[in-house]
């Protein structure tokens, strides 16, 4: 199983391949924010501090929405568009405004 660490809420959760981050939020009760849930509004933007390689690839649309935020987008993801794509590894995520 892969491990997701939600740094802002001090939650470490083991999940199986294919688990969506929406589900992780729901099951852990984490304070991750969602808005539209379809990748339009960027409310759910988060920093993946490490372990990006254990998540699914960004779609064209996610790239586009992230670019509009005008920041370096390499470590950013929209949580509503993410799922775990690995059966091991650790992903560190933070979503609270610095």
């Amino acid at each position: 199983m892969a491990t997701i660490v939600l740094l802002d809420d001090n939650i470490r959760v083991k999940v199986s391949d294919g688990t969506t981050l929406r589900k992780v939020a729901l099951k852990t009760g984490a304070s991750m924010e969602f808005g539209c849930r379809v990748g339009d509004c960027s409310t759910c933007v988060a920093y993946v501090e490490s372990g990006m390689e254990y998540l699914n690839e960004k779609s064209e649309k996610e790239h586009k929405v992230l670019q509009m935020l005008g920041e370096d987008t390499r470590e950013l993801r929209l949580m509503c568009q993410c799922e775990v794509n690995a059966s091991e590894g650790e992903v560190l995520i933070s979503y609270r405004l610095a």
Partner: protein
Amino acid sequence: MIGAITALSDSVFFTGVFDPKIRTFDIIMKTANGSSYNSYLVRGSEGVAIMDTVKKEFSEPFFQRVELLCDYEEIKYIVLHHLEPDHSGALVELMGRAPHAKLIISGRAVMMLKGIIKEDIPFEVANTGKTISLGDKTIEFLSTPFLHWPDTMSSYLHEEKILFSGDVFGSHYYDERLFDDEVGDFSYAFKYYYDHIMRPFKQYVLQALKLYRKFDIDIIAPLHGPILRTNPKYYLDKYAQWSSEEKFRKNEFGKKMFSVFYISSYDNTHEMAVKITEGADDIDGVIASMYDLSSLDENTMIDLLEESDAVVIGSPTINGDAVKPAWDLLSCMAFLENGGKVGATFGSYGWTGEAAGMLHDRMRGLKFRLPTEPLKVKLIPTEEDLESCTGFGREVAEIMMGKMVEMEI
């Protein structure tokens, strides 16, 4: 009749409109003294920029003002600091009249533009650092999101030291004299606007202030109410103070606030509340307190919620629902920033017991962190029930204090 044109400087003019009759704004705000939809025209050696438009019904006086100041052919840029309809209402018409105008919006506005303006219009995106030139005038953009729409930006006119702040520093206050040193006392409207519009976004306010303070500002030109030119720093400092009050208290006491809000008819939910509070208060660094919802007014609710790091709500189930004061409490969250507060719910019930679960779901919708399932007790709590209440209080408090939670799903 539009009256004389007001000039902010040799090259910046007011093109906004007045709405003295409005009494309720955006459904949620009272505007006892009416309001204004401010717009500004900036003239440079190589063209004109229009900073925001107005509410659609007020297009006519807006266009009259613009026409007194320039030819439509001269308009090089139209800047929308955010897309809210009270400032974008005349945009399509203006784009139609100004053949060479380029629309400037923020990155976050791109996905919203189609929802506001039902046709394709060309635009250019501005994020922090982008500048546009009108020859001898340079406008620099600052990304100041969520104040109060996600797409909000601000801009700064270098040569005149004017900050176009969007809705930030606005007031719903109608007075055609316009400048802060000439209008009546609008301080109540300035504070009311902050409380209702900006308070939920304090962290974003603080970030925006950091950007603003990099500039030498002579005039703040907001989108509603008086133009602030007497001592702009005073207004920046007010926003800074209001946005950091809560942090100040937290930093001074160095403790976390655990608030138990309850309501109870036969004392059952109350007894649970007492034990939850005791349990939480046992944990180092926690100040746990109880509040009876039946005697809190809305302003007190808002202040208490804002201070609380954990919000724990107890209600009995009455006719298949939680009782109204509990919902009223949660509806106050609309005025606040959540910022990852911990939440939990509990309550005594008779036969169906929906209340705690319904409150829990609502809190999830409000983006609380909810580490526990709702705690329910059938009718009068037993000794054992009361022990689990103490444990519940401890657990939620420990998590509020940062205990690592490990799980598998």
